């Protein structure tokens, strides 16, 4: 059996329904929410603020610190054991590297900008949702950024190329699957995150990235609208 139709009746390049809102956490310096299907991400930004221990300080520029966390009952199966684990640490690190190219923290030597990404519920694509929420929250915090960062996962399920895989597609058993999270700067089209789990051919990867870029453009429009909505004159 080939994978001819997506289980949730989406088109091959169709995203799950997206909802984005900025300024959801009052006490944070910047915050945003990004929901894509059943994956929800909240990001809050604190800082620039004092950085200790002192050896972590960089006298040339401020540093960015991202923390990705899945809440205990956010998975679709078992309870997620709370706290840092290998996976969360890795995703925190790649998210940080995906966001850093747009940020300019030269104005804040020796300081830190903390980003906390919390996921109350997830169904695949959580790092992408987290990066989208974090980039909106950083913009909301009034930091100098040359662009936003939009992220989406693309992939191959059996012989089809898809955009924004959900869990049922990621876990498809009757054929080979590749899951490729992409983050990019939508204005310049530069890619800041590219990971892959699974197997694809070179041509399919090229095509998949092309589809991802196009989808990121659509996500960017949603993010832009959410940011403007918070500040627009009522």
């Amino acid at each position: 059996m080939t994978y001819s139709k997506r289980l949730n009746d989406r088109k091959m390049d169709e995203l799950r329904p997206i909802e984005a809102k900025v300024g959801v956490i009052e006490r944070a310096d910047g915050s945003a929410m990004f929901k894509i299907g059943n994956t929800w991400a909240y990001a809050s930004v604190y800082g620039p603020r004092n950085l200790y221990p002192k050896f972590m300080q960089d006298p040339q520029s401020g540093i960015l610190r991202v923390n990705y966390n899945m809440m205990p009952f956010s998975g679709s199966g078992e309870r997620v054991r709370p706290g840092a684990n290998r996976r969360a640490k890795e995703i925190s690190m790649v998210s940080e590297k995906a966001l850093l190219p747009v940020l300019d923290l030269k104005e804040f030597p020796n300081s830190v900008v903390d980003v906390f990404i919390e996921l109350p519920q997830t169904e695949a694509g959580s790092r992408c949702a987290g990066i989208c929420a974090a980039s909106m929250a950083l913009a909301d915090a009034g930091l100098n950024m040359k662009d936003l960062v939009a992220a989406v996962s693309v992939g191959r399920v059996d012989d089809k190329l898809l955009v924004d895989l959900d869990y049922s597609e990621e876990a498809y058993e009757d054929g080979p699957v590749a899951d490729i999270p992409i983050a990019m700067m939508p204005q310049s089209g530069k890619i800041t995150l590219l990971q892959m789990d699974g197997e694809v051919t070179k041509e399919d990867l090229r095509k998949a990235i092309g589809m991802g870029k196009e989808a990121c453009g659509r996500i960017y429009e949603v993010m832009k609208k959410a940011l403007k909505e918070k500040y627009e004159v009522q």
Partner: protein
Amino acid sequence: MGKLLIQDKEIVVPGEIIAEGMDHLPGQGTYREGDKIIAGRLGLANVEGRAVKLIALSGRYIPKRNDTIICQVIDVGFSGWRVETNSAYSAMLSVKDATSEFIRRGADITHYFNVGDYLVAKITNVTSQKLIDISTKGPGLRKLHGGRIIQVNCNKVPRIIGKAGSMVSMIKNATGCRITVGQNGLVWLEGEPKSEYIAIEAIRKIEQEAHLSGLTDRVKAFLEEKTGKKVEPGVEEPELR
């Protein structure tokens, strides 16, 4: 011919193209790439002739020279105090900038300011590494006794103060409170508990509606309703207080 792609007073997001062609000049918060001017942060676009700049709407306080701020003493050293400035950096107040009195070497300087005290101070210097020096010598600069401190968005402080202090003086007259607004987003108020509360409500209202025009009239109506008295429009004060 260059083209402006946004309206004046429009909200722009990072990476948004503001103008094309070389006819416009990139101002604060924007940068040029090729022949495009691009937003370098989230802000309100302000077109002035050929120059386009962005006015910040959010973000923490960035210390600047000659700003009057409200800060809290967090540590006492041999020859001065370390104070918290509601920004990413703490500031240093040395004894010689604190008072014109003679202080003997090794004297107990907690007698002047102690840990936890709030001060109104002026920033005298900021280095590239963001080492900040402040002074409490000058008109209006002092230690604060009593009252309460509230935190506001530091980007809205100019609106709270108003043109030459007209907005804050209107609140002072209407509520009878003493108010000091720090550029760093801390506001000190002292008065009757009830009027303090009205003053805080008025400041919150200004903070929320800072981007709308006709704010003075609305705040005036708000204060008249709350205090039940006729409110005189604020006089322009020469010095921010």
